[in-house]
């Protein structure tokens, strides 16, 4: 009985600890891997849409925009206006060489 109690007590510690570790890894790591802002080559060659006072770029299925401090942001849920814009004006890119 005492042995059972001790085993159960260990379980109360080990299971939550393992769960907490897994949760910490799951919550922390994928945040950076899930999305990355567009690279400079993309910004330099792509026409943005203007929405809520800033230029927004459709990149890897998200709209990205810079805030007043220069940091990149993106919308997880596509704003209706930008979706309408994309439906009528697919993102246009320009190339300075047409041969390759």
């Amino acid at each position, binding site marked *: 009985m005492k042995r059972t109690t001790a085993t159960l*007590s260990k379980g109360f510690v080990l299971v939550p600890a393992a769960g907490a570790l897994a949760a910490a890894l799951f919550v922390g790591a994928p945040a950076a891997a899930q999305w990355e802002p567009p690279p400079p080559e993309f910004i330099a060659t792509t026409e943005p849409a203007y929405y809520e006072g800033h230029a927004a770029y459709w990149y890897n299925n998200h709209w990205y925009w810079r805030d007043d401090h*220069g940091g990149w942001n993106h919308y997880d*849920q596509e704003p209706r206006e930008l979706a309408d814009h*994309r439906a009528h004006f697919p993102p246009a890119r320009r190339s300075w060489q047409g*041969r390759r």
Partner: protein
Amino acid sequence: MEKIKMRPIRWIVGAIPGWVLIASTGLVACDNASSSGGGVATTPASATAPSSVAVTPPAPTVPAQPVTADDSVNEALRDYHRHHHGGLTTFLSMAVDTLGLDEAKRASVEKIQSDLRAKTAPARDAENDLLAAIADGVAAGKLDTAKINAAVEKHAAASTGIHEATADALTQLHDALTPAERAALVDKVKAHWEVWHKVNVDEKAGNKDDKGGHLAQLTKILSLTPDQVDKISAALGTDAPATPKTDPKAEDTHIQAFATAFLADRFDAKSLASSATSSAGHVARHGGGRLVRFYAAVTPVLTPQQRTTLAAEIRERANDDQIVQASAGK
């Protein structure tokens, strides 16, 4: 006996930090979920203030169009910046091309852009002369160093008076754009500068393992053999160090000064005079010099057929300003 009785209590006491950890992890997870599910998320690396963008309702479904980071358009841009060294004014003109202005505004801005291009024509012509001189040398099997160095210096000299010549056009451009469009223009100028810096400063010219590098590009175009690649890589060795007349840091300072001035409500071109003077000719000398050094190392290793192909490629760089519409949705 005493020891056995105490064991469960000790484990229970040990469990408390575990449960506290779980509770706090749960809180962090909830916090993340609320910030990403609310319509807008911020870059993890960005130490910026929270955005003021309003939460928006879900949008109607629009077919997703994958837009990739590394493709032929990006590669073409990098190659453009390897061969063109006009600095800020060139970046500005290119930035205007992708501003995404509405029809009404586009006409007036294109007029300003034409004026800007007219003022920079001498520098562009000098650069085309340089490209032609390099192409001639490649075709002949040896670059004429004196002629080509003179062409680099002529291009640098032609770049010197650009700021003064374009000050009015820059003011007109500023006044024609909204604050959001100005910010987009500045962002694009900085993006071009970043790409230019990447391929002309950060990229090691002789690095044969860089799949996006100039040598890899050339290997693809000319079907270079591994032996040729090794020889070119060895000939290029380490990149030439910057000198006071070629240091790109001066252009970086000029671009930062431009960004600050252009984002202000009122544009003061005179505020750029100092950085324009300090940086004049640096990009042309650094980029032109690097280009000459690269093709001087490549030329002796090529077969006559490869030299003919490469000379034609370099001559075509003079036509890069003819903008080509890339496929939409890429």
